[in-house]
């Protein structure tokens, strides 16, 4: 996308005031977004994002600049403007670029840009019909479709010169159920790092009906009891608990500065021994997978916690300097408008040995969180919160009545210690994760787990 000559000149301009490392990230992204309400498309957007980000390090200082002007002149001007924030003499190092071939393990069969919009609309209609026809209490179905074709070029002063392509496709279904003037909604959003063949791999109708079933169940449910008691969190998107409560606190973004509750605790027991957790950016076609990260490092499978012992963090190139450790292929950004930093890819708790049925049968009283909503965490204090989208009470070893409106709060390190049962049914779910380097696709996952106690926010008192 850019010639080696121009890249070299821009990198040297970026380092002209004492920078010891410079990087160029160019992006040309095509995307399609279609929104359907009650079976009719009411909004469609075709877009092309295009720009360049230039990053410079000087020791533990980082400067980032970006622009849409990508001719030689515009790039050199942006590099110089960024360099003006640093003070020093050029190190006089030469830049010798060498082209790196990327091993592509996320094959794309049907490029979304080549698929007629009408085919995308057909899939959306199938989802609409399945959800809308599920039950008379379903009063509204919103379906949206997204495809993104991101072409990136990354080069740096250490000689890296690499191109990559990321194609992602996602369908989102939001079913609303109404009863006596009250409304409850349920969301499902299957997505993969692949093209339009996604719809040969997933059962659109089944997923849409599941959203509808969940909304109908919740509109007929009473409020969850509040208090501190056991919680069983189901497999799949339930993994958002690990993502929020622990994953963010294992990112170098907070670990490097000693701000995380997990800083300086490698080799220590931080979780119940039933917990092994991994961040793996190399799973073919998974939503959060990438051939290379957003600074050109190959992604890998990083073991974070093994049988309760803290084994590793997710580390980007800049924080690697502060930590004196190697980058782990975890550096990500929403677009060229963000400096990359350590983020999660596909993060999950590994399979254990129990079954869901055993866990429920062995529980006297608990909240069973069948579907989780989103959540957030303050990595400095470890305090997290997240919403239970579909919940049930467990009484006497059986699933009892459905409950709505529950929120789980707590501290990540405490929850990890309190996981006392882990099933073998590992599954994943797709989410968009927001943090300092923007909103990025990430898989969360886990088998069904039981936590001996969590503070459950709700409207009634427990028991």
């Amino acid at each position, binding site marked *: 996308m850019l010639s080696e000559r121009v890249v070299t000149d821009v990198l040297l301009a970026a380092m002209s005031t004492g920078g010891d490392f410079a990087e160029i990230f160019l992006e040309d992204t095509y995307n399609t977004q279609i929104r359907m309400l009650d079976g009719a498309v009411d909004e469609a957007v075709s877009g092309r*994002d295009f720009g360049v980000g230039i990053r410079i390090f000087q020791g533990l200082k980082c400067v980032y600049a970006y622009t849409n002007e990508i001719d030689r002149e515009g790039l050199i001007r942006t590099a110089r403007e960024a360099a003006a*924030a640093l003070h020093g003499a050029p190190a006089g190092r030469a830049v010798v670029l060498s082209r790196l071939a990327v091993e592509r393990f996320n094959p794309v069969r049907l490029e979304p840009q080549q698929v007629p919009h009408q085919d995308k609309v057909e899939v959306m209609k199938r989802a609409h019909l399945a959800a809308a026809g599920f039950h008379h209490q379903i009063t509204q179905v919103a379906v949206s479709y997204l495809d993104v074709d991101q072409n990136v070029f990354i080069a740096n002063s250490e000689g890296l010169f690499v191109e990559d392509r990321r194609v992602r496709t996602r369908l989102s279904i939001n079913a609303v159920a109404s009863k006596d003037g009250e409304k409850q909604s349920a969301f499902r959003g299957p997505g993969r790092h692949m093209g339009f063949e996604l719809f040969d791999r997933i059962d659109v109708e089944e997923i849409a009906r599941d959203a509808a079933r969940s909304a109908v169940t919740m509109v007929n449910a009473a409020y969850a009891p509040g208090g501190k008691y056991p919680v069983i969190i189901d497999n799949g998107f339930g993994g958002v608990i690990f993502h929020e409560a622990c994953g963010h606190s294992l990112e170098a973004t907070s670990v490097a500065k000693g701000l995380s509750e997990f800083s300086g605790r490698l080799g220590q027991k931080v979780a119940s021994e039933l917990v092994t957790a991994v961040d793996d950016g190399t799973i073919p076609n998974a939503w959060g997978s990438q051939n290379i990260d957003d600074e050109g490092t190959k992604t890998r499978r990083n073991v974070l916690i093994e049988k309760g012992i803290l084994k590793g963090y997710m580390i980007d190139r800049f924080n690697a300097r502060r930590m004196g450790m190697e980058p782990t292929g975890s550096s990500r950004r929403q677009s060229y408008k963000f400096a990359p930093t350590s983020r999660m890819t596909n993060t999950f708790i590994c399979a254990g040995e129990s079954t869901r049925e055993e866990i429920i049968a062995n529980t006297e009283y608990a909240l069973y969180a069948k579907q989780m909503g989103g959540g957030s965490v303050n990595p400095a204090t470890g305090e997290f919160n997240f919403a239970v989208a579909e919940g049930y009470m467990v009484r006497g070893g059986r699933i009892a009545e459905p409950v709505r409106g529950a929120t789980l709060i707590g501290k990540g390190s405490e929850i990890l210690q309190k996981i006392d049962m882990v099933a073998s049914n590992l599954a994943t779910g797709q989410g968009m994760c927001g943090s300092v380097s923007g909103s990025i696709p990430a898989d969360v996952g886990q088998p069904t787990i039981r936590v001996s106690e969590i503070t459950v926010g709700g409207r009634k*008192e427990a028991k």
Partner: protein
Amino acid sequence: MDFRELKDRVFAAGQSAGLEELEVYATRTKNLHVAVFEGAVDDYRASLEQGVGLRARWAGRIGYAYVEKLDDDSVEYLVAGAKAAAQINESADEVEFHAGSGSYPQVSCFSQELAGVSPEELVAFCLDLERAALAADKRVAKVNRVLTGYEETEVYIANTRGLEQGFASNAAYGYVSALAKQDGQVKAGSKFLVERDWSKFNAARLAGEAAAEAVSLLGASSVPSGNYRILLRSDVARQLLATFVPVFSAEAVQKGLSLLKGKLDAEIASPLVTLVDDPLLEQGVGSVPFDGEGVASRRKQVIAAGRLVTYLHNLKTARKDGVESTGNASRPSFKSPVGIAPTNFFIEPGEQGFSDLTSALGDGLVIIDVQGTHSGANPVSGDFSLGAYGYLVEGGRVVRPVEQITIAGNFFRLLESVEAVGSDLEFGSLGGRGNMGSPSLIISSLAVAGV
């Protein structure tokens, strides 16, 4: 290529491709963002970004496309992209392109003084913030995040019905988060400021408040679950208002996604609540001369002493309801289709100061932060259940800090159960949902889950 030249080319290419009407919405944004850590700049970001969004009508239907690169390829892409998008649109809604409002209000949305603040001054302010937070109290162990920034945006809109308007706006922001430590407990306190008036950027004050808040939370513990009287501090009241802003949108009402449907002229809130959207507010960060469709801005009451006066409209929803647009068409970005959002949206202040409200609370909880509004709150049902912390109040006095609780309730019930409105109106929060403000509010009861 500048915006006007691109517009001319897009209109020409679009008309020959059979597009019936075209509208270009373009922005150019200059941004500087600085963060420091332990006395040195560790993150410095500068950007110049631009983009053009095209809204076009083909066979009566609307399609959108956008680009960030302004060249000949992009003219072609915009026209083909918008046409392809229009071809699949099945919405029967009539969308009208605005020919112009005749006259536009004079609005102060750009400060020359602020534009003259140098990058060095922003860095110096950021360093001062960190120093001041650390100096404020011995128990402040670390400043985990401190940043400042400046943003300047030019907006340009033009369509084939003759509308052509533009304006520039700017604002600066500062944020500091301090960590206090004692007996193994870590507590964070943070303050965020976004303003156009540079004289309001007082490092000692902002950092002092963040540090004092962190320290004040040391020793926090939970409370027993139950129903409590609640004082929502102004920033928390504002955050809740921002979370439920979609319920006031006529689009949500028409689509059956707002429980305010059919409630016009009804009492929906305590008579103490008057809610205003004022795009003309002096120094308001959300102030604009016209909205995302080029309709002239005007001030309006949304709730007047508890009674719902109007929804927020753009041209499409206004036509459907047979009313005039309230000038609330929003384009959070050139990439976004026309939606609806408030500008400077606030609950009018009452008479009592914060300490008077604390006394008036009697026994209850002061909530100074809530977490999880993006997941634990449902704008459709109005239900929320959010992580929270604050202070326990007994006999009108703060007795201790409180952590690890949730507050749960329903936004519509909350509006009805406002018992007192403070005088401490403060604005905050940037982004697509507008500039929000609220005074502190006493709520007669919310469900609290603790131990």
